[in-house]
């Protein structure tokens, strides 16, 4: 057990959390402001929003998933990050803008109001399921890191990891998460790029040896677009899944709703894209460096995350080991916190909110209940996470694809017409297709096995969404028209 690095990595996060929590409590006391656990009083600054959005979409899927996948698909894996980056552009310039304009608590509530009220609890159920899946992915990521450091079994490491994750968000809600994310976003890049430089100095033969080995043994892993097989089985499907599937996931929109006005979102959008995508350079760089070292016989690990951890613990100086491990934990903890908050929000507003005793809850009661949901979701995720060790990247891409039909139905409803029938049929047809693709070899018949569920769902969403909306004589006017009418009436009433 590497006690020094384990304790150091955990202490790294505890110190940041403690300092930020104390700062927020003092500021709140000074302003005599009430706690807003879910939306931070809608006054978060652009950097905190950018960091929160960037780091929410950046966690175990990157650290565990990209390091693993880089051994299979090489630098082409960066298209996962480009897909996430394009998604953030879409959120900050389009879907998040309309979500904010709608004034709804959640994107599910917005879909319920626009297409069919029954969609709100259905989508809330899916959001909770999706967020719990991400909790499992992040917990597995933390478990891999803790396990590599301590030698503890995977399950025990997962429980330890999730306990730290729950603590991360339990104390002060989104405001604390925003500040902790801001601090972590800066430190992650500082230590990440220092580490890339250190690999060139501290590992045998440096980057020259790694590059030469990879070019000779596996040239497709260092080619900009890999090869035809990598493009077919990974790049296209993954890019589509990330870019179009993440737009209406509440955890990615949560920080958008915390912005005071749209000008804040403009700056936050640029910051979020840079922060999110550039992190891929660090992790894929680490993964491929570990593979180069394995090909030269300097490390013996059998897969990406284990190889990366072996490289860090073997060749990095101790202080940098602590910082890199702390940085990995921080990236995963930030995602855990945001998806845990989303689970709490969906359960409070969209499930419990339908029952009399919970209607119109005070912010204090909401905060207490949210903390209970976060603890329960975290502990159950720790137990379930043990089975997805090698499939993190696939799992997470699969998870995003469920939300692709929402993007296309929103697009059709915003600019053309809103059809309840079209929304229900399209969404359920896509979900049925995703199930069929998951449990049969249907994708292989189209020569689209791999991370390609998104391609099927894009086609089905477009065809069914447009066709049924066009045929539905009871379709309502577009969302844009509805918004303009209601907003004008609201502004006129305010002006009186």
């Amino acid at each position, binding site marked *: 057990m590497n006690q020094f690095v384990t304790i150091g990595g955990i202490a790294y996060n505890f110190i940041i959390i403690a300092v930020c929590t104390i700062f927020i409590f003092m500021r709140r006391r000074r302003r005599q402001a009430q706690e807003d656990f879910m939306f931070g009083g809608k006054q978060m600054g652009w950097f905190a929003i950018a960091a929160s959005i960037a780091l929410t979409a950046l966690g175990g899927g990157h650290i565990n998933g990209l390091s693993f996948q880089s051994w299979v698909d090489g630098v082409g894996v960066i298209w996962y990050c480009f897909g996430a980056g394009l998604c953030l552009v879409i959120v900050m310039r389009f879907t998040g803008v309309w979500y904010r*304009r709608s*004034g709804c608590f959640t994107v599910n509530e*917005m879909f319920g*109001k626009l297409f069919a009220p029954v969609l709100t609890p259905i989508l809330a159920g899916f959001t909770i399921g999706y967020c719990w899946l991400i909790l499992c992915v992040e917990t597995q990521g933390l478990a891999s890191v803790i396990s590599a450091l301590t030698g503890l079994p995977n399950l025990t490491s997962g429980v330890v990891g999730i306990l730290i994750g729950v603590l991360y968000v339990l104390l002060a809600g989104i405001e604390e998460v925003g500040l902790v994310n801001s601090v972590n976003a800066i430190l992650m890049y500082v230590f990440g790029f220092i580490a890339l430089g250190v690999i060139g100095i501290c590992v045998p033969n440096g*980057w020259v040896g790694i590059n030469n080995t990879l070019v000779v043994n596996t040239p497709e892993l260092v080619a900009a677009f890999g090869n035809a097989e990598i493009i077919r089985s990974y790049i296209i499907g993954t890019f589509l899944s990330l870019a179009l599937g993440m737009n209406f996931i509440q955890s990615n929109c949560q920080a958008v709703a915390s912005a005071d006005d749209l000008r804040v979102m403009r700056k936050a*959008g640029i910051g979020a894209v840079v922060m999110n995508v550039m992190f891929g350079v660090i992790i*894929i760089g680490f993964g491929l*460096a570990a593979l180069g070292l394995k090909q030269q016989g300097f490390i013996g690990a059998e897969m990406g995350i284990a190889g990366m951890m072996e490289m860090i613990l073997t060749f990095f100086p101790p202080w940098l080991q602590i910082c890199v491990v702390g940085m990995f934990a921080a990236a995963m903890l930030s995602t855990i916190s945001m998806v845990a908050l989303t689970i709490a929000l969906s359960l409070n507003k969209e499930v419990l909110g339908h029952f009399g005793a919970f209607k119109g809850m005070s912010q204090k009661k909401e905060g207490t209940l949210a903390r209970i949901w976060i603890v329960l979701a975290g502990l159950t995720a720790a137990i379930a996470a043990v089975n997805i060790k090698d499939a993190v990247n696939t799992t997470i891409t699969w998870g995003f694809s469920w939300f692709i039909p929402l993007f296309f139905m929103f697009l059709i409803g915003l600019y053309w017409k809103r059809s309840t029938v079209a929304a229900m049929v399209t969404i359920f047809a896509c979900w049925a297709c995703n199930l069929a693709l998951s449990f049969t070899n249907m994708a292989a018949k189209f020569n689209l096995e791999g991370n390609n569920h998104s391609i099927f769902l894009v086609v089905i969403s477009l065809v069914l969404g447009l066709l049924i909306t066009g045929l539905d004589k009871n379709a309502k006017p577009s969302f844009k028209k509805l918004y303009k009418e209601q*907003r004008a009436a609201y502004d006129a009433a305010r002006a009186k």
Partner: protein
Amino acid sequence: MNTIGPIITLPWGFFLYTLIGVIILVIIGEIWWAKMEHFPEDEQPYSEGNHFVIKSDLTDEEE
């Protein structure tokens, strides 16, 4: 199997490759911002009482 695209040198060639992608995404975002329809209410801060919430126009039957 033949490779596609130039060989990327780690880590700084890869850094540059990714940076080009990021710059393209930021440009897309800024063009989108310039072209998108801006409403006056978008610049009303929430803290100044901008608490509009859209109402559903679906009929009772559908609700």
